[in-house]
């Protein structure tokens, strides 16, 4: 199955090269080749879940043996199901180390699925100014970067893949985006680069202090190779870098512009998986490598996360543009995920993991729908939209479903992350975390308020002129094919959350145990 590990990175890379090299006349054929490559990558991603290496050492089932032997692959919290470890630059002690486990697997599958849906969508609809094959090629390169980030088990390799994503995403926004695309793309790249610089400094702090860049070793050591001050410094640098990506309030202002101006497929990938690189990085790299620093910084992180929830929700309540509203809702949702991480207990981390997946599915769907509405009505302004269910009932119905899923209705995917982030906060106990839990729950009520306001303005009421003039009210087959998996997943993950968190139980418990018994 290490072949699958390589395949899931190599197939999109080769596909991207092939698609970009094809001539302009074969644009549609090139897009089909790209979609095919994305499909093959999804297959490879699914195959990664088979034939897993068994878990050794302290497991979720027997917490009594917790913290017995840190150090060595047997007792490390990071025990990949499949692993690939090749020497890359022996002189610099860099290794090409890939691996997948219960924490990264759902994210890899989500990335492959969303990329496939986006490539399929581009087959049907290429935004201005055309040249769809280049858009598909860039999407495939972004997929390589994101999947590589989730699979990398070496810090420097992680950083390389982290950076691979930036320029293609910049190009996607800057070429195929809306009217304000140049400014939005520039802001996105520069802001994220600022975070990346800090991330790089943090990584080098860790590597210099501990002498290794191997995530498996580092997580097993649980920061014992670094002094307390170094750990806190490393965690802060890493956390700020990831916080820009997640995004965490107040480092979020690149997000609304980028999402609003990006083309539909760009927004879907951006919201669906790019943001998850930040939170995944926090769990895997920041918390795993510098747990003591994490514990000291946890209250700050928790407060900022809850601020993100409340500020995101309040701003959404006053929003007047469709895509911008959904963008700010991402700030709120990632606030719940970050709250779950900040609690540093198993419940919180599980909540964060399922919150990640749920947000990717639901917000990806929401951006697809926003794109469909803007294409049909030629406006995203809430004042000018209205009465969508009169003219396009199918589209209004799916929008209603997505909005209801996003507000965290129990029974759909979004509920588990939000509710159990609150549970995790209460489990930590103490006055600060109890207050944070209460305020986060209030944020849930605000989320309902702004999403229902959105539905009232867009779908209910009499048909506004922009909506009444829609010439293609029925859903196209390509749209149905692109959205159906997301709708089904939102319901299935909502009813059976064990599908996502079941496989992460062991790694999460082991990680939390090293937090408790790590270097002091």
């Amino acid at each position, binding site marked *: 199955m290490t072949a699958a590990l390589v395949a899931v990175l190599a197939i999109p890379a080769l596909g991207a090269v092939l698609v970009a090299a094809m001539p302009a006349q074969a644009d549609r054929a090139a897009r089909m080749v790209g979609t095919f490559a994305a499909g093959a990558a999804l297959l490879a991603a699914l195959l990664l879940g088979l034939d897993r290496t068994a878990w050794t050492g302290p497991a*979720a089932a027997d*917490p009594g043996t917790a913290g017995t032997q840190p150090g060595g692959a047997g007792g490390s919290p990071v025990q990949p199901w499949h692993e690939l470890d090749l020497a890359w630059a022996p002189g610099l002690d860099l290794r090409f180390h890939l691996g997948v486990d219960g924490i990264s697997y759902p994210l890899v599958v989500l990335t492959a699925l969303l990329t496939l849906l986006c490539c399929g969508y581009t087959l049907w609809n290429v935004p201005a100014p055309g040249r769809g094959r280049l858009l598909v090629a860039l999407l495939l390169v972004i997929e390589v970067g994101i999947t590589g980030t989730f699979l990398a088990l070496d810090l420097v390799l992680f950083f390389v893949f982290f950076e691979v994503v930036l320029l293609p995403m910049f190009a996607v926004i800057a070429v195929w985006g809306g009217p304000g695309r140049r400014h939005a793309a520039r*802001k996105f790249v*520069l*802001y994220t680069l600022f975070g990346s610089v800090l991330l790089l400094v943090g990584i080098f702090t860790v590597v210099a202090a501990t002498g290794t860049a191997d995530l498996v070793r580092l997580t097993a050591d649980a920061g014992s190779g670094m002094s307390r001050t170094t750990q806190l410094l490393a965690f802060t640098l890493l956390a700020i870098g990831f916080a820009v990506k997640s995004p965490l*309030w*107040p480092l*979020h*202002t*690149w997000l609304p512009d980028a999402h609003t101006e990006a083309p539909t497929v760009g927004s879907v990938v951006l919201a669906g998986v790019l943001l998850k690189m930040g939170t995944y990085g926090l769990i895997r790299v920041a918390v795993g490598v510098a747990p003591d620093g994490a514990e000291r910084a946890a209250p700050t992180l928790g407060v900022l996360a809850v601020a993100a929830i409340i*500020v995101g929700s*309040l*701003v*959404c*309540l*006053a*929003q007047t543009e469709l895509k911008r509203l959904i963008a700010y809702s991402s700030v709120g949702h990632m606030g719940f995920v970050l709250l779950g991480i900040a609690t540093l*207990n*198993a*419940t*919180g981390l*599980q*909540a964060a993991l399922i919150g990640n997946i749920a947000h990717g599915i639901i917000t990806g769907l929401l951006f697809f729908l926003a794109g469909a509405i803007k294409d049909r009505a030629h406006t995203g302004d809430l004042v000018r939209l209205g009465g969508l*269910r*009169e003219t396009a*009932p199918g589209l209004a*119905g799916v929008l*209603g479903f997505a909005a209801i899923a996003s507000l965290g*209705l*129990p*029974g759909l995917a979004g*509920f*588990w992350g939000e*509710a*159990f982030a*609150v*549970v*995790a906060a*209460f*489990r930590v106990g103490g006055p600060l975390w109890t207050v944070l*839990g*209460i305020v986060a*729950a209030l944020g*849930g*009520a605000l989320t*309902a*308020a702004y999403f*229902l*306001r959105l539905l*009232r303005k867009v779908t*209910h*009421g009499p048909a506004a002129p922009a909506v009444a003039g829609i010439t293609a009210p029925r859903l196209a087959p390509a749209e149905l094919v692109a959205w159906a998996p997301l709708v089904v997943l939102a319901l299935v993950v909502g009813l*059976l*959350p*064990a599908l996502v*968190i*079941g496989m992460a*139980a062991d790694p*999460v418990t082991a990680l*939390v145990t090293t937090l408790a018994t790590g270097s002091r």
Partner: protein
Amino acid sequence: MSPDTLGPLLPAVPFIAALLGLVWPGAGRRLAAALGITGAAVALLVAAWLALTVDGPYGTYTELADFGGLPVTFGVRIDGAALLVALAVGVVALAVQVYSVAYLADDDRYAPYAAQVSLFTAAMLLVVVAGDLIVLLVGWEVMGICSYLLIGHDRRLPEAPKAAVKAFIVTRTGDVGFLLGIVLLGVSAGSFRIADVLSAVAAGEVSAGRLTAVALLLLAGVAGKSAQFPLHTWLPDAMAGPTPISALIHAATMVAAGIYVVTRLFPVFDAGSVPLAVLGVMAAVTMLLGALAATAQDDIKRVLAWSTVSQLAYMAAALSVGATAVALFHLLTHAAFKALLFLGAGSVIHAVGSNSMAAMGGLRRGMPATFWSMTIGLGALMGLPPLAGFWSKDAVLAAAQGKNGWVAVMVFTAGLVGVVVTAWYATRLWLRTFFGTPRSPAAEHPHEPPGVMLWPVVLLAVPSALLGFAAFAHGFTDRLRSPAPAEWVGEYSGPATRAQALQEAVELVHLSAAMALPLACLALGVLGAWLAWRRDPAADPARVLGPLRPVFANAFYLDAVQEVAVVRPSRALARVVRRGDESVVDGAVEGAGRGTSDLGGSLARAHRAGLPRAATAVLAGALLVGVAAATLGGLS
């Protein structure tokens, strides 16, 4: 089929019917109606079968997910009370599905409507049988979203979307407390299973302060869902939804879910004295608020809506004095007669073409079956013997009278005053709608609705009249009591504690001289309304309220209070935060970007020097470097 599989079928069957109805491409009217009616009928049959065959309470579970040591289980926890409530839900849901076929005969969006009603039925049944707090929350909130979807169903009503949003937001506000209560309870007990929670409470593992906090938080959700003061404002506006929905969701089932949950988790509320006292105060205030508001409404549905608010307060009052079986008894009779009243009102509205009682009058001549059914319904509402409502309301008053303490006295007094006012407004509705001369052209030629609409109304009159007599049957009263922990099959049996005290046989009927007082109040109310009407049959008896009439009609202006105290500040805060986020937080980022480009620009300008200045700069720099090297070299 074993009870283990039948229990989960109760919510599963309507859920499947709902899914099929929602995703089936091009579902026609007949298929949609068939799915809806079949779903409700099967649920009813399953409930009836379980009620007849299962003799003891039981629970069955399977784990759904494990969040770091806190498991969430899917399972059912079925006792006699759960089955009786499930039966009531099944009956009313089936009646509403059948009724809707004719009521929405000219509606092109009937198919999603029927599917949403099935989804609602599934959610309500899930709340009734859920054995895990998180699963209960799922059913609870799905009911809320179905209520939102169905209130906003009618496109022709401009006020419907706003009413739908208001209903969801007000109940969601209460649900924040509900979620926090569940979270706190689950974290304290170490599990979300209701059986484990109740065992932990019984064993004293949860501190008293915490239990009080949990109970008060849960009461917030109960107040929202069951439309008790101060979260009652959504229910009258929810009447913008189709009338069958008002019958199902906003009278018989969803609003009763709050009361039901309190009985289910009663040991949590009973642990201290504060939660039940708070509930008692809420009940007393709401009882009178609802009844007085109903006296001055012109819209027939709004009268019934306020009446529901008031009757729910009676159930809450019974709970606040610890009489859970009595509360459930009133819940069941109320489900029957309120569903009857709403469906009957729907027939009247259908005939007259308007909700307003000012356009009705003399309808009994053209609609005899509806007239007699509604008479029975209104009689039950008032508490007229020997109809069902008399027995259940009397049981509530008797329970309050039998207890000591200021809560019981307050609740009893409010209950008696409520009887007077209820009789008054019920008589007013009866006289204004069915007697006197018709006040509009449509009312002059009323007709009975089609059979599909008429039969559910007539059939519901049977339990409205006779259900009260079930209080004499031990089989019925036995099922309403809470079983002791040791009786549960398939559940963890905790230590036998105060729950054992509930094992005593429940007596719902107290035939005594104390019945005379409520009857006297009833007569007072009826007489008052009749006299006011008789003086001028064409005018509204509410005119005798004089200056109080607009106050009651606007429900003491509490809607306006809510708008000013909550809605407007939230919107203003949202605007402020948005501006702050855009100008301050983003302003810092944009400012940093601009500052950097400006700095770069000025440095570029500085470098764009002409040859003389550049040569001077080079020579000056060389001099500086030479001096520095000499000085520093000399020092070392």
